[in-house]
């Protein structure tokens, strides 16, 4: 179920209504039931897969926590979880890649597997792995019950596209139960409304149409169109994914739970390491904690650090999709990180104050990010190279796409304003709440956002990250 679909609106309304009326002790079982229904309503057969992943890993967790050979149990947990992920997500890519060798050398021609990607498998697999590793490291105080573990893995607001949760972060909340307050409910509605508007109005309606048109139009001679399409895609993927995460966080708040922030204005990054602290933050932290640092991180000398960085980014790219284009996309980001670190350039964090002098660095890094997006979006490697070629060659016989340029201009301004909105919206809302007409104004603004999302929803597509 997509969050912007009428069936999800019905589902959410039913869940929230029941959630408010059942006794507190039944709330967690209710969300677990709702999460399983949510998953079943996608493709019922894959509930077995999710159930098996949860059950097997839960059994192995006991071995990790209390067994004589925890390393063995951890190995089994990793092998099982990654095995399912590789089988369902990457089998087609692996067989397809190996096919010429299999046919040429071994004279066998296996059929390329054609599975429908199980919903959210990349996200929940990473969540399972993180919890197994944390348990092995002794970073989980105690094992949760099976039902709580199942809820942690299958929590429906974040099941399909994150943010990726950690046990230490979310299990204590589950143990306490959802804490519903008027403030959380309002914040939840705001995040839901903003997320819906980002996804439906910006990503689907204003941005995707143009980028799809140009990315699919091979061989048309108009560099300005290609640049505008590239910017459109950059903002489309950001508003699509961050809008989805906002909705996930908003729904969790309506149930009384806090989910972590996943995006912080990534296109305001001044260097590559800052970008990965602003873009898909929970994934970046996962890759850092469970891949980069175990590989040795920066503790084994400068060369090994650069190799570790590159490996982490290549695998991070592959996580995004079963295609070599995603590996190339990860590789480009890895290369940017390696060059940046290798040259010893200044590194910033999101907490480093911004100044007007940062604009050139922001612009340079934004364009590098955009060029990398070409490999993420293009159909294949050849199409990506063709697209990049069109950026720099040709004549502008079609004039200027003024409408889309205006949309991009709006997105740039909005992205700049997002930082202030994120930091100042809570205090603005609490000030509004003091006014007698505050509720009416809040309701009206959200109503306009939701109304706008409904009328533009006929144009939209699926979440770009939906099957990741």
């Amino acid at each position, binding site marked *: 179920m997509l969050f912007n679909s009428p*069936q999800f609106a019905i589902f959410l309304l039913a869940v929230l209504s029941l959630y408010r009326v059942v006794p507190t002790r039944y709330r967690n079982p209710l969300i677990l039931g709702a999460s399983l229904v949510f998953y079943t309503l996608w493709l019922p057969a894959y509930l077995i897969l999710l159930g098996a992943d949860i059950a097997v890993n839960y059994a192995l967790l006991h071995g990790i926590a209390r067994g004589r050979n925890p390393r063995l149990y951890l190995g089994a947990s990793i092998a099982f979880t990654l095995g399912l992920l590789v089988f369902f997500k990457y089998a087609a890519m692996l067989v397809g890649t190996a096919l010429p060798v299999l046919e040429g050398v071994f004279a066998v021609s296996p059929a390329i597997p054609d599975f429908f990607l199980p919903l959210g498998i990349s996200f929940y697999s990473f969540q399972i792995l993180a919890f197994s590793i944390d348990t092995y490291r002794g970073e989980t105080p105690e094992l949760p019950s099976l039902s709580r573990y199942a809820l942690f893995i299958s929590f429906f607001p974040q099941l399909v596209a994150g943010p990726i949760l950690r046990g230490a972060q979310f299990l204590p909340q589950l143990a306490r139960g959802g804490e519903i307050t008027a403030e959380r409910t309002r914040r939840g509605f705001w995040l839901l409304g903003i997320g819906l508007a980002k996804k439906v109005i910006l990503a689907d309606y204003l941005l995707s149409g143009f980028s799809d048109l140009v990315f699919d*139009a091979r061989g048309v001679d108009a560099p300005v169109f290609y640049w505008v399409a590239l910017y459109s895609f950059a903002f489309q993927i950001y508003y699509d994914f961050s809008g989805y995460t906002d909705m996930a966080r908003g729904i969790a708040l309506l149930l009384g739970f806090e989910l972590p922030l996943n995006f912080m204005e990534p296109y305001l990054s001044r260097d590559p390491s800052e970008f990965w602290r602003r873009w898909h933050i929970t994934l970046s932290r996962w890759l850092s904690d469970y891949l980069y640092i175990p590989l040795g991180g920066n503790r084994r000398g400068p060369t090994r650090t650069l190799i570790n960085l590159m490996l982490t980014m290549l695998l991070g790219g592959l996580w995004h999709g079963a295609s070599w284009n995603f590996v190339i996309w990860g590789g480009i980001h890895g290369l940017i990180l390696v060059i940046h670190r290798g040259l010893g350039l200044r590194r910033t964090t999101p907490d480093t104050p911004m100044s007007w002098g940062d604009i050139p660095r922001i612009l340079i890094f934004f364009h590098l990010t955009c060029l990398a997006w070409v490999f993420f979006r293009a159909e294949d490697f050849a199409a990506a190279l063709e697209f990049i070629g069109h950026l720099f060659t040709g004549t502008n016989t079609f004039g200027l796409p003024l409408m889309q340029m205006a949309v991009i201009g709006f997105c740039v301004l909005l992205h700049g304003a997002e930082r202030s909105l994120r930091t100042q919206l809570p205090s603005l809302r609490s000030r509004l709440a003091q006014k007698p007409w505050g509720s*009416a104004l809040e*309701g009206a603004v959200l109503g*306009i956002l939701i109304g706008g999302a409904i*009328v533009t929803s*006929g144009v939209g597509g699926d979440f770009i990250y939906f099957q990741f």
Partner: protein
Amino acid sequence: MPPKPRIFWSSLLFAGSLLTSALVVILGVFSLAGQLPAQPWQTAIGVMDRILPNLEELEKQALETIPRQIAVLGDSTVDFYPVNEKVPDRLQQALARSSPPAPPVAVTNLAFLALGPTAYYFLADRIAASRPDLIVWAVSLTHASERWRRSLPRPELAGWMAAERIASTLTMPIDDIGLTADKLLLYQLLVRADPGSQWRDLRVNLSRIDKFRAKSEEWLAQFTGTQPEKSFGIVSALKKLKSHKHPDLPDRYNRLGEIEHFGSALDGIDSGHPTVRFIGAAVQVFSEAGIPVLVYLNPVNIQHLEKVGVVEAPKLRRSVNAYREAVENSGGFFLDLHTVFPDNYFSDMSGHFRHDDEIEAQTELAETLARYILDKGILDTRRAEASEMGRAK
């Protein structure tokens, strides 16, 4: 615990303002967009507006056992909207002209643009409930292509399916046509709520909100004197079309176009292919209802496929056999007509048939069907016998 008055009233204000504002935006935008005429192929309700009256007519006629009823199913190769030259009319005429004369027959058209195997799988029980004496169903090899399955599956028609078939439908490859359990239930809910024209208007207006964007584009265009996005779109669409068109034959695809048009059918498909499974399952529903089914495989422009070098006979035979086995194993009759027409019998690149002063392809097709029906005595097959046959197979 009673709610605190302040929270209660502010929640009420909040919710009231939210709903009112959303409604104002929606109605405001719709009134500006204007009520635009809907085309029947644009919505599932539009399609059903065409199909349902014919089904009701069929049900009424089935009560009077004479004349016998034949229901014809198929896509634009059977019913090319808005041209009123259709296979059902021709079949009725062909049966009337036959020698020895066929029993009196009324042929009802249940075909419509882009109704393929999945659409008829969803409508199968509705059609079976109207109790025709025979179902004649046109299927094409293009139905197996990815292009058809991705862009023309009409999953919304699942809303008209009988509730008791939902569980078995979930075991079918519905993911292949973009249908998920939640959508299936929503469509069922919508059909049961009987929203009729309001829902269609809502869908049509939603799909046309782009009009605002087009207007803004026009307004901005006055500063440059051109409409670059529109012209770019047109040029890219033309380029794409050109890349699929045969350089010398204006009404035919080139190699690339044919590969996309027929898709996996050219590679040879088997019984596990989603299209084959939907065909078999739909025929099974008819057979279990005791209604004989004749599935015919539409003529394919083999001459042209050979000319552009995309057809390999063994692979194509494998695909045809997959269709045949699906139909026959489900108790239906299968008539393979994919080789019967030469190149000049096709009017366009989509495989529609010519009907002009020189060639009346639909009439010839209908006569072939009539001969097969009479030779095999399918129309005389009693429903119970057909049912037995279906079970035996």
